[in-house]
């Protein structure tokens, strides 16, 4: 558990920092930064406590966490559900494996090239967005996912043979990453970088533009936002991050085959992220943990585990969308913050106890940030 919590601790604080930006006092923010730092430290020192095997498992979870961060950009910020992110992950792994095995590239150079390929692919996928609005793009991603499953990922170019490709564990300059603990640290580093990137996007001008597009394409366009440009940018960034996740996964396992990157995996990724909270960085970390680490403890049932994961993910998604569409992390986060506000106001004697939000109203801001499913709730069906 000490391990599973790590990336989350880190990003809970990061989340809260982002959300509370308008409402938080400087003192509290430095406190949050301290917690974030402590979280990173625990995550980084974790492998000393848990050994190689679990380092491998959590490094794998981190690689999926990176893919899910990519999904956050396109689903959570831009409001466009993608059904092809596992395929993009596979693309990253496949391109890297090919460049390393066939063309004897350095792993990291190959990985960089794979990320560029991912970025360009994301742009091409986003191209129909020039004319297509709304959910039709999700349909396009499903069709493309199918195409990738059948044609691209198992192709001779990427997979080589039926068994796929194998490469050896890369080194980081002079540092050997042969131990899974060492590789875990690299995966963690990449994950944290991506967390920072996504949070920067979310908090910055780009994030505001993405949210504007998500909430009303017409409105955004009317305010002078180029829908084409920002949709393409969103898709491309998201796809590049997902490909990077594939690169990290490939370095860890050393093998590429198309099997783990099919449309059902994409669907599970999307479902888990939506359950956890689609705009939430913490949600991405939690979802990755649930997808990779939890099934591991059920490994005794092997094949059935995949189906069980799908069944539970699907069922939870349906129930949760009806009961509490905001997702787990935002819902819990709002409650925690409310509790904190209560205690703080009471401690300082500001306002009567039991009256949350007498100073600030974090809840309203919260809904604005992480509630893709309810943004257009005011709009009537025709």
């Amino acid at each position, binding site marked *: 558990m000490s391990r599973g919590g790590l990336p989350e601790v880190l990003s809970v604080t990061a989340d809260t920092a982002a959300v509370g930006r308008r409402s938080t006092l400087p003192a509290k923010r430095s406190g949050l930064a301290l917690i974030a730092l402590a979280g990173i430290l625990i995550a980084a020192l974790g492998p000393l406590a848990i050994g190689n095997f679990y380092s491998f498992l959590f490094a794998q979870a981190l690689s999926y966490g990176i893919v899910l961060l990519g999904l956050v950009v396109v689903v959570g910020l831009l409001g466009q559900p993608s059904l092809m992110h596992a395929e993009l992950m596979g693309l990253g792994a496949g391109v890297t494996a090919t460049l390393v095995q066939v063309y004897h590239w350095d792993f990291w150079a190959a990985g960089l090239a794979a990320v560029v390929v991912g970025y360009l692919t994301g742009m091409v996928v986003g191209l129909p967005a020039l004319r*297509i609005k*709304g959910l039709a793009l999700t349909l*396009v991603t499903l069709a493309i996912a199918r*195409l990738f499953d059948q044609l691209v990922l198992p192709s001779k170019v990427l997979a080589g043979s039926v068994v796929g490709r194998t490469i050896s564990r890369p080194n980081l300059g002079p540092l050997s990453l042969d131990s899974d603990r060492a590789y875990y640290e690299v995966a963690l580093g990449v994950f944290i970088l991506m967390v920072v990137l996504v949070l920067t996007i979310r908090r910055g001008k780009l994030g505001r533009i993405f949210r504007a597009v998500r909430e009303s394409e017409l409105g955004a366009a009317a305010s002078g936002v180029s829908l084409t440009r920002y949709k393409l940018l969103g898709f491309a960034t998201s796809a590049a991050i997902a490909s990077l996740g594939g690169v990290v996964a490939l370095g860890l396992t050393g093998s590429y085959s198309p099997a783990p990157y099919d449309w*059902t995996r994409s669907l599970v990724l999307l479902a888990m992220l939506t359950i956890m909270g689609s705009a939430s960085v913490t949600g991405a970390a939690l979802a990755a943990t649930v997808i990779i680490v939890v099934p591991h403890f059920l490994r005794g049932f092997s094949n059935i585990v995949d189906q069980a994961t*799908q069944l539970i993910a*699907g069922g939870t998604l349906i129930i949760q969308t009806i009961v509490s*569409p905001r997702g787990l992390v935002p819902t819990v986060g709002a409650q925690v913050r409310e509790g904190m506000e209560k205690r703080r106001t009471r401690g300082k004697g500001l306002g009567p106890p039991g009256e949350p939000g007498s100073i600030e109203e974090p809840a309203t801001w919260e809904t604005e940030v992480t509630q893709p499913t*309810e943004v257009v709730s005011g709009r009537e*069906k025709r």
Partner: protein
Amino acid sequence: MEHLDLLLPMSIVGVVLGSMYALPAMGIVMIYKTSRVLNFAHGAMGMFSTFVAYQLSVLWHLPSALAVVGAVVFAALLGLVIERFTIAPLEGKPTLSKVVVTLGWLLVLTAAAGFLWGASAYHAPISLAPPGTVHLPGVEISYLQIMNLAVAAGLTALLAFFFKRTRLGTAMRAVADNVKAARILGIRVSVVNSASWVVGSVLAAIAGILLSPMITLNTTQLTLLVVSAFAAALVGGLVSLPITFAAAIGLGILHSDIGIWVTTPGPKDLVTLGVILIALLWRGSGLARSLESA
């Protein structure tokens, strides 16, 4: 180009295949027109009902006719349950949340079918028509193909009659045109929504059952039939049933004819994607408006 002699027989297979795309495609259009939901689970619903027929006929050795009736009843209930308990409660919520629910059902139904019948196992086909073929000048057509085509054509005609002549069908068209006006006129929109899901689910089930002897029956193939069905539905602008039907036949012919020259499934998917993109771009603005409200 070699193998041109195969063009006619393969095209006939394609027409049959296309008519099997047409049934779920029309279901998708119906559901979209009444409740404004792109139903990603449509193929999965048909797949699950098909496996119910498989269970009844192949595993429990019931007569085929009885198995089909059982599966159709199941499909109707499935459509009703999904609409009543998971789509209707989201009335007034953004369409995205309803689509997310259909994605959830897609996962649930695929995984459940995997549990019950094995995701990659071999499944003996349901025998529906006697084996054998009819000889026509130049081509041979199997009884199965004739039956499939007849059922598809019959159901389409029935659907046309249903929309034009029955109260419920007229009510559906009214809801599709204008929900508010329909409600003011006393049409029970919730009943209409349920009905469209029930009919849509039954159409998908029948298509799945008829298609199952023509393909390898497994949980993935029929589930992803939804992509081809979507392609046809999009050519019809998610509105027009006749154009959807024609597009489905066209797509079926394309898919089948490709099989003359390449045997891997990839190029088929490339064609489907191409059709989806062309349909979206060609129908662009009109669709955009209707999907914008979605």
